[in-house]
């Protein structure tokens, strides 16, 4: 799979593609198909989905609140899988991230004085890490998140066609 369309080697698209392809080859290397049972397939799907999210979050690094939140979520999940006693560790990282985001933005859901509370809450649930954002930052993050999701969709859609 060449990427002749990528003009900018440092753009989000190219970063995401390289990372995702690497992850994908890893997945295919480690797990030769032994059976096509639904559970196996589902496990593989989970791995691929996680790889997609992870590579997207890593491409954005920590520049965005949602990417940070997503990275933290993935890391805590992997810790939990490896070591059930790592709950404390993940709790600490949680607090650190919460504090960090609270220092930047104002914490907690509140009226915001604009009157779009229900929609804002729904949006907060959709965007990763949205609970700690005020409306202003939430809209910012939503815009960037939408941009990243559209690049993902663009990159995935040629699958199955070619």
């Amino acid at each position, binding site marked *: 799979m060449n990427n002749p369309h990528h003009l900018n080697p440092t753009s989000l698209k190219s970063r995401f593609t390289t990372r995702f392809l690497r992850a994908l080859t890893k997945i295919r290397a480690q797990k*030769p198909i032994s059976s096509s049972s639904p559970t196996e397939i589902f496990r593989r799907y989970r791995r691929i989905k996680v790889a997609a999210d992870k590579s997207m979050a890593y491409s954005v690094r920590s520049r965005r609140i949602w990417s940070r939140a997503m990275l933290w979520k993935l890391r805590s999940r992997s810790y939990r899988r490896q070591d059930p006693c790592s709950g404390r560790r993940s709790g600490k990282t949680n607090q650190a991230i919460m504090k960090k985001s609270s220092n930047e933005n104002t914490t907690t859901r509140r009226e915001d004085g604009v009157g*779009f509370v229900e929609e*804002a809450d729904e949006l907060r649930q959709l965007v990763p890490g949205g609970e700690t954002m005020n409306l202003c930052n939430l809209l910012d993050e*939503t815009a960037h998140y*939408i941009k990243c999701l559209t690049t993902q969709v663009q990159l995935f*859609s040629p*699958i199955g066609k070619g």
Partner: protein
Amino acid sequence: MADFSAQSYRQPFPFLDIDPTMESLTQFAELNPQSFILDNSAFNFQTFFPLSINDSLFSNQASQGETMSGFIHNSNQSSVSAQPIFSAKTEMEEISNKRKALDISESSSGNSSSTSPQVSETGIKRRNNSGRGKRAKSNEKEMEKPKEVVHVRARRGQATDSHSLAERVRRGKINERLRCLQDIVPGCYKTMGMALMLDEIINYVQSLQNQVEFLSMKLTAASTYYDFNSESDAMERMLREKAEEAKELERLMREGYVGIGGVACFHSSSTYGPL
């Protein structure tokens, strides 16, 4: 904003023309709710002008003077209107015996005459005292009075001007970002209200997430199929080899054994088949 200047000029007049009727004041009071609906940010303060003037007249609140600068910075017209208000106010002070002004300003319905004279007396006394004070003080008071007058307009509608300014800035930011999102999200029309736009945005994000999920499922299926197919040759080879081994074993068995041994070998070879 043209309405604003017109009304701000109108405001001192009710005080001057108060003798004949208070109709002008009630009209003014009636006007205010309308203007309130028209434009919250600019006209908030005007609605409560008749009521809040009492507080300013009867209490010395120097701290409010600080916010005046913010208020004047707010709207150009206010700085222009400050002048006529100042002059009107000073005229009023000179004509300080017009207690009726205070009466009517106290009660917009204009009924209680018994209690109001007493209160108005104290108010006028205060003003007179302030006038008799040192020049600097009186100047300050005079400066504060127009400040108070100007500030009174802003007081009820917005807690303090710095807060209202900050809120206005925030709302501007939010509107800006909503507009950006409007361009990104298809299906958002400028005529739609903010709530509708947010709903559209939510739907769009959900649909994008579902698309990504679906496409990654597709990817999984494709990779499974591909892996399966690529390894099928190897598997076939393995199967063939195993089958050949099984056949050789069978031959050996038949040569060596007769009966159950042969049958067992046949069974063991058959288990490799379906794989």
